[in-house]
């Protein structure tokens, strides 16, 4: 039986990695991947706590998160494709202006 603390630690590490990725990467796809990583870190923590307290809400919530993340990725990827078509680039630092 792996201790809950270990899962939480892993979750924290994953979350920090994701956050670092969001803050440091300029590629929009990598940015999305990092966001996914943060979401999954949160999912891992939810599952761990759910298991600890023997509650089903944690599991349930994870499914919601995964569904919303999937939807978000679909929209996000569509946006990225649209941006790439106009700008020939998915570098987010080039998208700091409202026009274009």
């Amino acid at each position, binding site marked *: 039986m792996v201790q809950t603390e270990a899962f939480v630690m892993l979750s924290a590490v994953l979350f920090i990695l994701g*956050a670092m990725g*969001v*803050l*440091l990467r*300029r590629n929009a796809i990598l*940015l999305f991947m990092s966001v996914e990583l943060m979401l999954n870190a949160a999912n891992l923590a939810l599952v761990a706590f759910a298991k600890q307290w023997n509650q089903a809400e944690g599991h349930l919530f994870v499914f919601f998160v995964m569904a919303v993340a999937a939807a978000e990725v679909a929209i996000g990827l569509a946006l990225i494709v649209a941006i790439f078509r106009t700008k020939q680039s998915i570098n*987010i*630092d080039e*998208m*700091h*202006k*409202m026009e274009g």
Partner: protein
Amino acid sequence: MESYPQLVTLIVFIPLIGMTINLFFGSRLGERWSGILGSGAALLSFSVAILLYVYLRNSGYAAAVVNPPFFDGWIRIGSAGVEIPWQMRVDTLSVTMMLVVTGVGSLIHIYSMGYMHGDARFSRFFTYLNLFLVFMLILVTGNNFLMMFVGWEGVGLCSFLLIGFWFDKANGVGWRNSLAARKAMVANRVGDFGLLMAIFLIFWTFGTLDYYRPGEIASVHWVEAQAAGGEHGAEGAAPAEGEAHTAEAVAPAEGEAHTTEAVAPAEGEAHTTEAVAPAEGEAAAAEGHSAPAEPVYLNNDHILTEQLGVFGQAERMLEEKREVDFGPFSLPIETVIVLITLFMLLGAAGKSAQIPLFVWLPDAMAGPTPVSALIHAATMVTAGVYMMVRSNVFYYEAPFTSLVVTLIGASTALMAGYIAIGQWDIKRVLAYSTISQLGFMVAAVGVGAYGAAMFHLVTHAFFKALLFLGSGSVIHGMEHGHHSVSHHGHGHDDHGGHDEHHEEAPFDPQDMRNMGGLRKKMPITFITYLIGTLALAGIFPFAGFWSKDEILADSWLAGLTNNNVGGYIAFGMLLVAAAFTAFYMWRQMEMVFFNGPRTEAADHAHESPLTMTIPLMALGALSLLGGFFNTPANVLGLDRIFGAHIFTSFLQPTVLHAHAGEFQPVIAIGALSLAIAAIFLARSIYGKGKSVTEHNSDPLAERAETGMIWRVANARLYWDETYFRLFENPFNKISVFLADTLDWRFWHDYVHNNVIAKGFNAIGGLLSKPVDLGLIDGTVNGVGALARWTSGKMRRSQTGYVRTYAVTLMLGVVLVIVILLLPMLQR
């Protein structure tokens, strides 16, 4: 019978209705109906006055006080205890005045229909005349001094309006007319100040303004004498609400709501009558008539002093030698009455044209002649005499004032009579004559001959109205004569407005130098004018003889019996004044009617229409017979035909100190022969074609020994010039100083421009630059600049780089977590 006095409301109301209709619809009614309406109103009032006289006769001269409907209370200030009712008094004095005002007034209204024919403002003239009647009747019927004052001011207003009636005449005449109207107004304001002061003093002293309260007996002596003599006589009225309590308290046995006071001989003779003025319109039944247990009062002893009228209180206070408290000081009642009467005298001097305020009356002749007859000879100017006779109790108790009154009256009579000798204007002669005759009346009041004063007032109203109307007829004839001459006979029946005549030439139809020989042209006017002249001159048996003689005899007797120096002085001055009267009147007769016509206008003059001559004839008859109203006892057996002292005994129930004059054969014959001598003197100077010399001047002026005397009279004793120097000129100078220097230079130029304008600019500059531009605009702009500056700074944070936002978000989350966790760590 008891509701008869209520008619007195109508006497005022009828002319008021006539006036209102004429005011609003007069111009549409047309000349004929407008005149009939005005005259009809006057005649109806006259018939009411006659009914009131009949009432007085039948009720044994009992005075009645009437509360007219809709006038319940007039001025009422509960907190101050001021209560002045609008009450009308029907007594022998007020009815005398009513008869004169409405009687002479009616005749003058009728006359005016002829005289004012063709005038552009015909209906307005009748509006004013009726308005005058309204106010004059309020003046004489009021039961308190304030109502008298209302009437007093009202007739002053009508006088002003009517003097300036032809304010738009051409050649500057209209301007002179309005100046004359203004002069009358101003001179009367001075007198009104006196009357107002007298009213204030009366109210302060007695707490009321009523002459007599309802139920009070005016002339106790007379009532007592009547009762003792067993003759019928009664005085009384149903008590008003306030009075009822005391009356009942005195007679508790009856317990009747309407205690009727009646004076009856002790035996309860059948002649007892009461005057009942039902309070609040309730018809008080005449129980008193048959109730033998009814208390019968011969005097006012049962009434508390505070509930008496002014005169009753004055007598009690004099008996008790009371002091009147004026706050910081107090005066004995005698002194207060002297003050009241002196102030009243000032008022009378204004209205009745006595020295020093008479100067307006000669100028008042600018008004149409019927106005001169009605207002400035017969009625309004006698208001002052009426007031003094009404207040005879005061004057009787104030010997000092009486002396002043005597001197003023007698010297006015003498002075005006003298000035009249030197006048050319036919109406001006009559105006000075009026002043002179008013002086006779005032002097009569001064020597205590109140009955004689009223008698002379009545007869003078007859013959002076007659003379003025006659002069109007002469002027009318002259104007038409002039008209027909200048139009070569076409204009004979072309009755244009009077003002048209003046536009043609400076011909003066009132100048006696232009007249002469009118005796044959205007026979009716001549005969009536002759009657008026003889009456005024005091020739037996015309009206003026009796009244003037009574004044002369009374002043002589006042000197003889009462050791009154004023009586002798008055007698001497009035005797000379009477001689002057005869002289200037005959001078006028010679100039106007005798000798030959001196101008073509006089040659073409013709008799006036019937509307004008009928009033002349009526007044002529009155001037002829008016003296017999008051024939003295034991004169040629006349008293057996006409009765002795009828008028005086008629007045006695009302005028406490009226007494029948004794006939003095020596004085009468002396005055008569003096008057006849004066007439013959005038005839010898002015008769036989000598009335105007070749130089168009007076024969007296061309004689060395009389020239000076005549010129001074012609210059009217320089009264107007003196007043100009003393008052008008300094007044003008002060006005010029105030206007030019104080108002224009100081106020406008200095204060306005320098102080106000500069101060305004300074304050305005201060407010606009530092305050408005600096503070207010600075604040508003500062807020804007601050917003712009901060937003400029904060704009930098919006980089548009997603990662920057992400870092911020991250840091925010960290911060929130730290804040949430901090309390846990501290634990």
